[in-house]
């Protein structure tokens, strides 16, 4: 009997050790991206992409009670809020697709154009246009009052032609 009890205690202790040593984070659907991006030499932004600051001048200016507030400026990316009467209604951005080449794939299915450049809706709140096969200009609504047609109209207020010449 004592032998069995000892055996059970030992078994219990080992299983406790086993269980506690395995209390790691549960697998995540983002593990793949984590592993790839922490491997040697991995980058999310390439040197050849444009500086974020070079995009600022192509954004629409303040007008008629609308206010533009720049919020992010990182390599290959610039972002601004669009506010009306102090309220955030949309987010506007320009990004260099050299940093995320698969982002241009969606434009192959585009059926309409803004200023001659292909445009698509993305997700439930976004509309994007691809300029010069390289720069993605995107607007996302942050308020239900800012509709798809507002997004299209504001995309047209960017200096898309100027941006297409940015080298």
């Amino acid at each position, binding site marked *: 009997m004592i032998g069995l009890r000892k055996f059970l205690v030992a078994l219990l202790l080992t299983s406790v050790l086993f269980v506690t040593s395995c209390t790691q984070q549960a697998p995540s659907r983002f593990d793949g991206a984590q592993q790839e991006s922490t491997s040697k030499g991995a980058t999310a932004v390439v040197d050849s992409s444009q500086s974020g600051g070079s995009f600022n*001048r192509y954004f629409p200016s303040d007008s008629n009670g609308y206010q533009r507030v720049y919020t992010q400026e990182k390599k290959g990316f610039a972002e601004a809020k669009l506010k009306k009467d102090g309220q955030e209604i949309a987010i506007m951005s320009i990004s260099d697709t050299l940093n995320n080449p698969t982002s241009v794939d969606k434009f192959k299915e585009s059926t309409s154009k803004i200023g001659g450049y292909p445009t698509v809706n993305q997700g439930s709140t976004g509309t994007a246009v691809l300029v010069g096969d390289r720069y993605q200009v995107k607007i996302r609504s942050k308020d239900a009052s800012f509709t798809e047609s507002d997004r299209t109209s504001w995309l047209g207020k960017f200096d898309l032609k100027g941006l297409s010449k940015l080298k």
Partner: protein
Amino acid sequence: MSKSIFELVDNLPDNNVTTMMLRSLDSIVPGQWENTVGFENTIHKVTGESDEGMIQQIGDRAVRLYNDKSQGYLRAMWLYQTVDRTDRALGTAALANKVGDKIPLLGGLLSKVTPNPDKAQSLDLCIKLVVELVAFCQINGIPGDSIGDFVGALSDYSGESLMRMAALVCVDGLIPLGPDFLLKAQSTLGGIGPKDLESNSTFSSVKELIPGGNTKGQLGFIGNSFDSVQGWMANFVQERNLTPQKVMGNLQGFLEFSENKLDYVAAFIDMSTNYYEHTGTQTLARRLIERAIDEI
């Protein structure tokens, strides 16, 4: 190895001393802070998207951006984590002693904390402010083409960022230093030299990421940063009529203490909470996710 951004956001607590303290300050910045935890949940909250394919793409891009050292996110996270020197055991002990919804700050708990002298507390306040400024630039870059654009971006603080600044003013300013905390901080900064700064433990922990070259330069940078935001802080206090008594009333929503122990309340909150790390993680995740959805 440092943790992934999804682990950090997934591991944010729903309820601990930090969240209790932040909730108690809600009436100072009404409705600005919601304790959003969990990476996928944050993606959903920030973007409004619930399509699984979109969430996967946004999350993958955010993970990659976070891990790219050149992008500054890792440095910002390190700053937010390092400037909070939390004694987790004290937080756990405090929660274990909870009576109803409140932690009684009496007897045993009280004996575990030591109030910071005014000089050290003033410096802590200034260093936390500088950390915010440096982390802001690491996360967002320097948006726009002019100083005006940059100030516009700074004054556009909302959500968890505004709550972090509210907590800074309240629990690192008004409560430990009193209503003239800005003057005290300014006179402390004006009266110290590089040696004093070196001996401050908060400074030593984050000094490698404070601009300025050497300690003297860093002291100058801290002074300039403080000067540039003290107007904003004074306004914040004035617009809301904030006083130590008023903040005390807020804190009494989760903490039981006697009114003559304010310095102990400040020391207890300093040691048992990590509100910079908690809300800083939320801010960083939000900005990263905003960028990720724009880049996919």
